[in-house]
């Protein structure tokens, strides 16, 4: 794991400066069934393709942002603030959870 991530605040830095926050996903509503909550808590897609995930620049500006990374090549194709998610198209995953 030696790829670079371009923090929207600090620019390209080694992945070791960041902490991964995992796949981006929607938090179920309070009345959602147990199955939905279990899925949210314990299941990840973990597919070999580009997906959106959270990153935290823990050794830098300590800000959270989203990155789209291809899990099979570790190529980070874009990083952006969460509020830009909506502009990025109608993907069901790419919506603010609340």
């Amino acid at each position, binding site marked *: *794991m*030696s*790829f*670079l991530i371009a923090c929207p605040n600090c620019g390209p830095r*080694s*992945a070791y400066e960041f*902490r991964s*926050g995992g796949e981006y996903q929607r*938090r*179920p509503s*309070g009345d*959602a069934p*147990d199955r939905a*909550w279990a899925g*949210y*808590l314990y299941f990840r897609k973990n597919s070999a393709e580009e997906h959106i995930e*959270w990153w*935290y620049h*823990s050794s830098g500006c*300590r*800000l*959270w942002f989203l990155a789209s990374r291809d899990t099979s*090549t*570790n190529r980070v194709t874009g990083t952006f603030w*969460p*509020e830009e998610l909506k502009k990025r198209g109608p993907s069901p995953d790419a919506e*603010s*959870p*609340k």
Partner: protein
Amino acid sequence: MDRLDSHPVEVIDRSGRVSFQFDGRTVQAHPGDTVGSALLASGLRIFSRSFKYHRPRGLLCVSGNCPNCLMNVNGVPNVRVCTRPVEEGDQVVPQHCWPSLRWDAMALIEKVDFLLPVGFYYKTLYRARWLWKLAEPIVRRVAGLGRVDSSRSPAGHYEREHLFAEVAVVGGGPAGLAAAQAAAEAGAEVVLVDEQPELGGHLRFERAKLEDPISGETGEGFELARSLAEKVKNNERIRVLSPARAFGGYEGNLIGVALADRLVHLRADRLIVATGSFEFPGLFKNNDLPGIMLGSGVRKLLNLYRLKPGKRAVVVASNDEDLALALELHEAGISVVAAVDQRLESSDSALIRQLKQLQIPHLPCFAPVAARGRSDVRALEVAPVDAEGCLELDKSRSFPCDLVCISTGRSPSVELLRQNGGKVRFDPNLNQNVLDSIPSDFSAAGHINGLKDPALILLQGRIAGLEAAESMHPLGVDLKEQLQKLRDNLDQGRSDWRETVVPSVLFTTSSAVKQLVCLCEDVTRKDIDNAIAEGFDEMELLKRYTTSSMGPCQGRMCSMLVAGSCAQALDRDLTTPGTTTSRPPVHPVPLGVLAGPHHYPVKLTPMHHRHLEAGAHQMDLGEWKRPHTYTSSENEWEAVRKRVGIIDVTTLGKLEVQGRDAPQLLDLIYTHIFSTLKVGRIRYGVICGEDGIIVDDGTVSRIAEDHYYITTTTGNISFIESWMEWWAVVYGYCAHVTNVTGDFAAVNLAGPNARDVLSKLTDIDISSDAFKYMRFEQGEVAGIPSRLLRIGFVGETGWEIHVPSSYGEYLWDTLMEAGEEFGILPFGVETQRILRLEKQHLIVGQDTDALSNPLEAGMQWVVKFEKEDFIGKHFLDLVQSEGRRNRLVGFVTDELVKEGSAVVTAQTPVGRVTSARMSPILNRCVGMAWVPEELAEDGANFDISHHDSLVSAQVHQAPFYDPTGARLRE
């Protein structure tokens, strides 16, 4: 051994002397020598013993690739002495032999080699288990290469560097030097990595007259190399790492470089790989005898160190360039008894006519069959090759000699490119591996592409350098024109460079004799044939089964020989076997270099030195140092309960949460409600994960409507900080979280006399009516702007006083002075643990684990289900509806039990003790334990396993000390 006459090409300084110890004797050398060249000059022929059969081995490649010269230098095992520059006083010891290199008792193992067939450990030692028990100690003893000196402490020895370059060039030969120079000229910041003691690559020992096509400079090869190297070293835009080994290519254009005891993470926008090529030996009987050397190695010894590696030589080559070594040997006064030409077509070149003139026998279409000699080559047997490529053994001829110069073939050093996605294929016309594709951001220049003409190499290097720089620094008109001209020149030259690549030939001989395919692991041709017969006929399988190419040379000497043997055994051509995956490290790297320096960050509180002066026993808490106790926990306990005590709580995590949505954020994060908390009040809160498990706890003080001050447990602060920030971002709250842990020093002043002490130092009204329990105030204490939190972790009247950390020591001193008349004592973490246990205050991480939720931990009162939402609500709801299974309870016993002991009922472990201490007030052991729900009733009895017996314990649901909390509120 005498040196040849002095010549400008040499790198040794004959006027200087260096001496070092080798195996108990003193060896003289000149500055510029390597340990290997000095040892060869001193007459040493056997440099090492082979891995498995302990066969004698001498210098082979003289370029730091092969495993033949591994020795222990100054306590470091497996040093390649052929490239290690001599230093005065070096202690060099041979390894892997007993009693000496010359007479190695373990060489007897070759007599029983039938017991050690390929994959013998899969075949011989698994059936009878008892046999393995006997064999294992022996196998462990004889296996391995070199001994690590575990008494050497590596602390502070290794370092790490992160380097960024616009253009990184790997390889300091002519192509690499030209590339670096060109890229720097175009304006790029360049880092050049080279593994040899000096820059210049193979030009360092090239004596032919050359012309630099760029500068127009002419001179002998080594002169050009020096002038190029000088220019590069003096260029301010180029940083040279040398001698340094680029051992691996990683994603993100990262190259791992071992520079002596330093690991360099080299990252570049563009990378130029100019690593050249390496020679590998041929395959014939006893092909590993000392005295058999690679042609390029012999040329180095002749020129750089002016050494004569033998008196009578046979040259084996496949092209004119390599065959020309015969002339160099002749000139050095070494008699060349045969020039064996492995080319299938006989050619008639100027070189061959020259050989005839000098009466050097030229043997076209011949190949070596066997070397004779026991610990040294004495003769080489060669045989003609027929039109089908088969050896005609009946027509073989033997040449007595003490030196065989082998130039069988070359392979490009493409590892770094392959590790980054480059592809290599075997070209049957050129009989060589060639680059098929190069990864983006990379380029390759020079020998690695098969170029042999130094002028073309320089040209290609310059083109690569300009092209790499161009992507970042647009070229000026001059350089642009030059680049185009260079490209044209190279295109014209391109027609003839491929033809100079000449076949590496593998001839059919019987596999019944000892032909070493893999020198590192002692894998013979027979082993390969057997492995293929057993079905391991694919390169990756063959590698794993025979361990060939898994040794120190990482396949450089053997991978072509394995591929050739495999192809021949299966009657295929060499395009089929392919190559094995290239992985880092390309070269052996000391583990210490990878592990790096042993530096651990330590955090000290502003009062740290006062604790040391007071004689505190320190303990580690995360990265912090904290006093465990100062005198004894009994003394300190008594001070807090009866008079007044003070503890440094600077290590607490501290956060400020500010903003319009700060109340909503805290309501979401904590199970408790904080939006209703009045300004100036404090509330205890628990943070759960989404799964309802306790993550952290602490106090939350409300400074203003939109401003909270939070404490967290010492080790959890970074996580809680990022956790809060994350949720603020997820829900788009207008709330800002700031970690102020280091900004504030804090003490907890507690005890019946705490108010007396504090009132001496502050104007704030701290009477029990004015400053109630769980209240927050800001004001001055001892003249310092302070935050006062009236809380009671230890169960006494007390205040946490938070001040800017620069005042920490002053606050401590002032409080100690003010408390003197009341008998104040500082207390440590151990005393605090006893005090809090008497109050049954849990510690997250001590009394809770990854299965603990607040309902079962006995803190239902902090979980507010009436809130619409909070993190963990759904899963805590489930616990609530399904009922608690376990409970954290307080207990008492007569005997002190250990933390972690099992709670036992009906001889079955059903829970565990999380905390236990002797309580001075009860004079009994008090503690906390997880027990099944049915045992969690006040007065219930259970047993605790203790030293193979059971101790009877009783559940005690209320605090052992001051159960109503009256003292806290006083």
